[in-house]
C-alpha cells in the first residue's frame, strides 16, 4: 500500500468514527450486532425542550436536564414515561426500546411540549 493510499484509509476511518460518535442518534439499526445506541440529551432552557423533536435509534437512553430556575417535568402524553419533578440541574433518563413517536410535556407548564421519535 502506498503512503497516499494509507493516508486515504486513515482519513476514511476517522470520518466514519466521527460520524458514529456525532451522529449516532440518527444512525439506523441495520443488524443485530450493532453496539448500543449512544445516549441522547434534551436540555430544558427558558421553559422549552431542546431539541423539541429528538430522533433516536431504538435502545437509546434519553436524558433530560433542567437548566431553568423553575422546576419542570417530562411526562409522556400517552403514559409511557413520567419523570419526577426536576429542580434546577436535576436530570431524568428513559431508555426507548420500541420504535414509535413519543409526545411528552411538562405537567407543571403544559405549554412546554416535545417529541421523541424512535426509529
Amino acid at each position: 500500500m502506498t503512503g497516499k493510499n494509507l493516508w486515504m484509509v486513515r482519513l476514511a476511518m476517522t470520518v466514519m468514527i466521527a460520524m458514529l460518535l456525532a451522529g449516532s442518534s440518527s444512525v439506523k439499526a441495520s443488524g443485530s450486532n450493532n453496539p448500543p445506541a449512544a445516549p441522547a440529551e434534551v436540555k430544558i432552557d427558558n421553559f422549552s425542550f431542546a431539541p423539541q423533536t429528538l430522533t433516536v435509534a431504538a435502545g437509546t437512553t434519553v436524558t433530560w436536564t433542567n437548566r431553568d430556575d423553575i422546576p419542570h417535568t417530562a411526562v409522556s402524553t400517552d403514559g409511557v414515561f413520567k419523570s419526577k419533578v426536576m429542580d434546577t440541574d436535576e436530570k431524568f433518563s428513559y431508555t426507548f426500546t420500541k420504535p414509535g413517536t413519543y409526545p411528552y410535556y411538562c405537567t407543571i407548564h403544559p405549554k412546554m411540549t416535545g417529541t421523541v421519535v424512535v426509529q
Partner: protein
Amino acid sequence: MTDRKQNLIDQGMQDLNNDGIDRRGFLKCMAWAGTGLVWTMSGGIPVSRAFGKAIDHGAAKGGDFSFVQISDSHMGFNKPANPDVVATLQAAVDKINGLPNHPDFLLHTGDISHLSRPEQFDTVDQVLKSASAKDVFFVPGEHDVLDDNGKSYLERYGRNAQGAGWYSFDHKGVHFIGLVNVMNLKAGGLGSLGGEQLEWMEKDVKQLKHSTPVVVFAHIPLWSVYPDWGWGTQDSAQALGYLKKFGSVTVLNGHIHQTMQKVEGNVTFHTAMSTAFPQPQPGKADSPGPMKVPADQLRSVLGITDVNYVRRQHSLAVVDSNLV
C-alpha cells in the same frame, strides 16, 4: 338611540344608585396597575389614585371589612432572583400588620411552596402565624401539587374543601369561592377547572341573591392574560358564565407575579404580586421565568393586595402595595 348614548345613560344611572347592577355598557379595559396605585370600581369605571391617598371609607361601619391577598410565596426557592424568600414573606406579613384597617382574614392564591415539600409548607405556616389576621384561606398553585397529585396539600389545607381543594364561604354578606385550576393539566393547554368543579360551582351560586357581592380566587388567572405562557384558564368562560347575574364580581389571581387588572362588565379581574420574585411582563422575555432585579429594588416589585369592601358602595376596592 346609539349604543354610546345608552351606555352614558346607563353609567349615569349607576352613578346615581351606585349599585353596580344592570350594567349594559360593556367596558373592556386592560391596564397595568402600577405598584402603589389604588384601584376602585365606581359605576363600572376603574379609578386609580396614588397609594396612600386612601379611599375615604370614614369610620368602618357595620358590615364593612377588608381582607388581604398574598400570593406566590414559593417557599424553598433560593435562586439569584431572591435568595431569601422567608425574609420577603415576613416583610409581607409586617406590611399586613401595619395596615390602618386590620384585615379580617388572608387569602393565599397559591404557590405557597416551591416544591410541595412539607418543610416548605411548615415554614409558610410558621411565618403566617405572626400575621394579625389569624384565618388564612388557601388555594393551590401548580408548585403545591407536584408529584403526589395534591395529596399532601389537601391533607394540610383541604380539610373543609371538596374535590381537588375547592370550597366557598360567606363573610359579612360577601360570598367567597376558592377554585383549583392547577390539576390534570393537558399537554399544550392552559389552567383547567374541570367538569366536576364547574358543576359544583354552578350549584354553589344558584341560591345566592343577585345583589350578593362575589369574590372568586384561584391561582392561574381566570382570564386570558397571555396564553403563549400558559397565563389563562381554558374553561374559565364557563365559570364566569355562572356569575353573570351578579352585580359585583371580583376575581383575584396570582401565578404571574405582577399586578394586572381588567374590568369586563360586572367583573373586575386582578392579579397580585408575588412575595418571592417578579416575573417579566407578557412576551417581554424569552420565558416567564424568575426575573432578576437589582437587590435593592427587589422589594419594590413584591407585595400584597389589600381588598376593602364597603357596603354602601357595593364594590370592592383593590389596593396593591409593595414591600418597600
